[in-house]
Every structure is written in C-alpha cells, then in structure tokens.
C-alpha cells in the first residue's frame, strides 16, 4: 500500500486551557475521500482548522506527502497544497462571484486542472451569476463558490467543513455530485459531515469523532448502523 498523501498522527489542540483534540490519527490517500462524522462539539471543525493552519496545533504531527506541515501558518499550508472550504462558506462580501473565485488563485500552485473555466463547467450556475456579489447568491450557490474558490489554488488536498450545513437536500445532492469530478482531477478530499448517510455514500473511509477523539474508523461497508449510532452519540453498552 502506498504512503498516504495526508497523515495526521497523535494530534492535540487546545483553546486556552481547554483541550479540543486528544491524539487524533487519520490517513488520506492521494485522490481519496475520507469523511469525519460526529455530533456538534466533537472536535471535527477544530481538526480541520488545525490541519489548515488557522488554529494552533498542539502535539503530534501532520504530514503532507511525508513533509511536516504541522504548525505552519495557513498561507504556507495552502502553498504546500492543502485548501479549505470553511464552515459557513465565508465568502468575501466586497467581491463578486468571479472575484471570489479569482482570489482563490492568489497563490496558484502550478498549471493544475482548476481554472475559472473548469470551475464554471463544474458549477454552470456560477457562470451566469459571475458579476453578482458573492453573498447575494443562495446558500447552495454560495457553497459552490466556496468550493470553487478553494479549488482555484489547485490543491492536492481539499478540506470541506460542513458543506451541507443549512442546505436543502436537493441542493446538497447537487453539491456532492461534484465530488467524483474533483477526485478524478487528482484532488483528495477530507470532508466533515453531520449527514451520516451522505458521508457513507461519498467516502472511502469514515472516522467518527466524539469529544475530541476518534471513536470509530472503517470503510463504509464495514461499519454497521448500530456501531455508527453508538460512536456518534457516545452510547456505551453495559455488559454486566
């Protein structure tokens, strides 16, 4: 088996005195897709923010293609090839849709697959609305801009934090329909998702988090509904 593209080993993170992550491990293969599921407060977003350099990492290591990116500032992590779609989309209100996409290419890495044209092919509705302010779009369209913006740097790893949050099921389906094309372009995806069904559908591997720890890991086909339910809600079975 080839070495993982992104590897997280024994990662801890803190907010002041509060420990949010306790020795998290995960691997993401080149072109692969891994989903992190878990209830609110499980540490999923902290994990993503720590990998991309927005939050300070504690102990442990984060390796990208074998090279440490642990503790690097976010702009440098992006330059190394890890882009992030933040929770809540966080589009820039002063910029149009096209400018929001263009700023994603501020630090473009080589001549990769992702350009304005390929993003517009992926999400055709954005081409029609490219002159509109980014924040004037519907929630689903804003999410498409946020994903396109992250892809514009031609990342090797795309971190997607709660991209279905607050969206209608039909819109979620449209957005997740783009995942196979993103993977075909060679970009690996690490996705945080509260929608367990969606996570099991798109991911090669699923990790369930609870109170800052990974409590369950496996391929979707290997995980029973009960095991996921128990890990997600922290249910322990009294065998006595």
């Amino acid at each position, binding site marked *: 088996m080839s070495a993982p593209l992104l590897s997280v080993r024994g990662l801890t993170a803190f907010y002041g005195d509060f420990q949010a992550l306790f020795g998290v491990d995960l691997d993401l293969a080149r072109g692969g897709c891994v989903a992190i599921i878990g209830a609110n407060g499980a540490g999923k977003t902290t994990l993503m923010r720590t990998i*991309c*350099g*927005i939050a300070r990492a504690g102990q442990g290591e984060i390796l990208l293609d074998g090279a440490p990116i642990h503790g690097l*500032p*976010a*702009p440098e992590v*992006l*330059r190394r090839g890890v*882009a*992030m779609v*933040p929770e809540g989309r*966080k589009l*820039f*209100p*002063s*910029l149009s849709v096209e*400018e929001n996409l*263009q*700023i*994603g290419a*501020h*630090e473009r890495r080589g001549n990769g697959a992702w350009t304005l044209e390929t993003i517009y092919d992926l999400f055709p509705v954005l081409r029609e609305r490219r002159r509109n302010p980014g*924040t004037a779009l519907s929630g689903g369209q804003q999410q498409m801009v946020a994903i396109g*913006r*992250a892809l514009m*740097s031609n990342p090797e790893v795309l971190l997607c934090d709660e991209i279905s949050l607050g969206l209608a099921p039909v819109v979620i389906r449209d957005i997740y329909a783009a995942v196979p094309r993103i993977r075909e372009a060679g970009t690996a995806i690490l996705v945080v998702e509260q929608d367990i069904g969606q996570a099991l559908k798109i991911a090669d591997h699923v990790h369930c988090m609870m109170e800052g720890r990974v409590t369950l890991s496996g391929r979707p086909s290997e995980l029973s509904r009960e095991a996921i339910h128990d890990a997600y809600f922290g249910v322990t079975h009294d065998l006595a």
Partner: protein
Amino acid sequence: MIWLDTLAQGILLGGLYALFAAGLSLVFGIMRLVNLAHGDLIVLGAYVILVMVSVTGLNPFLAATLALPVMFGFGMLLQTHLFNRVLGEDILPPLLVTFGLSVVLQNVLLETFSADSQKLSMGPVEAVGVPLGPVTLGLVPLATLGCAVAVIAALNLLFYRTKLGRAFRATSDDATTVQLMGIYPARIFSVATGIALMVATLAALYLGARANFDPTIGPARLLYAFEAVIIGGLGSLWGTLAGGLVIGVAQATGAAIRPEWQILAGHAAFVAVLLFRPRGLFPRAND
C-alpha cells in the same frame, strides 16, 4: 460673480482636503485603523520633500518623486513593526499607539527642524493664474485638485482592477479567511500603509506649496482629513473626494461671509452632514 469665485476656491481647497483624507480613508477601509498620526505623517512628508530639495536642489515636484519611495518604505516599516503589533479586536490599543506616534513625530520634527515655519517654494508657477470664464484660478490649486482626482481614480483602479486590490478588499472583509487564500494580512496591511504614506506625501507637496508649515500643524490636518472621510462615508474613496469638497466649499463660503468663520463653517458642515446622513454621503454597502 463673487459667489462663483467663492465656490471655485472652495472646490480647489476641497481638493487639498481630499488629498489629506485619501490616505486616511485607504488605511481605515482596509484595516479599520483610525491613524491619529496621519496629519503628522503629512507634515513629515513635507519635511522629507524639504530635505530632498535642500540636498539635491531640485524643484519640489521632482523632489517629491524622491520622497515617495522613502515614505512608502517608512510606512511599511511603521505598519510591520508598530501598528501590526496592536491591531486586533480591541480598537483602543491602535488609537493610543497612533496618538503616541503623533506626539513623537511632532517632537522629533521640532528637535530636528525647529518651530520655524517652512514653505516649499515652487518659483514663478505659484503666481500663475488660469482664466476660466468669469473666474481666474491659481495653477497650483488647480494642480492640487487634479492630483486629488487622479490619486482617487488611481486608488480605485488599484482596488477594483488589480490582484493586490482584490486582496485589499478581501482582507478588509475577513482577515482570517483570507489566510486560506494564501494571503498574509499583516503584509497586506504593510503595503496599504506604504501606499497611504505615498498619498500623504503628495498631500504634503501641495500643503507645502500652498501654505507655511511647521511641526505642530499635523493635528489640524488630521481633523480636516477625518471630517472628509466621515462626510464621504467610511472607506469610500470617491466619497472622500466629495467630503473634501464639502469642507472646502463650506470653509470658503464661511470666509466669504466673515473671514473668522472659515474654520467654523467647515466644522458646521461636518456636523450638519452627520445629522442628516450619519453614515456619510456614500457609505460602503457592506459596512
């Protein structure tokens, strides 16, 4: 006829105030920093031009081209090593630091150049008048207004037509998320302050060409600049030009009625605009 002349003189004076204000507006628009030392930095720019004139013997216009990169570098250093250390959620530390800088600059200039008034002599061009219909306008005041319009047009082009301008606007919107685009906000802030001090140097050139200056006049220039920015709408560059013109016309009108009302009329116009348009004439939509 007198009123037409008053209006014209007010507009030309407004051009100078718009130049004072443009750098302040730029810095506020990008990093929400109210730079209380802005007036003193304009005065510093005037002294830098004066030194360049003394050392090289050049005309102040040419000497200003030498002062521009010096002030750009000084702005970058100031932002990198001073302002970036105090920018954050709390607005008080940057206010205190820029206030302190204002005091330091005034005293350094007093120590170095004394309290004597100085002027940037433009030579015969100062006396040239341009007849425009029923009024005759001074060439230097006309150049001041032309420079203000050109500076604000150039800043608008920079903001809305360049990659750097896009980064400026995005950083102003969200200095955390912009890091996910590979942008270091601190570096963007440093470049912005460098550009703001270049604009302040142009303001200094016309300040020194039109009037005497000494180390203590900075705070009054800051007040006019601040009023122009507020009248125009915080962060709006064309609004800043409009704000400068409002103050200039108000001052000229006040002076035409009674000379001692000049300054009072400018401040009264500021208060009047705030009463009816608290967010200024052209507020940014997303502020």
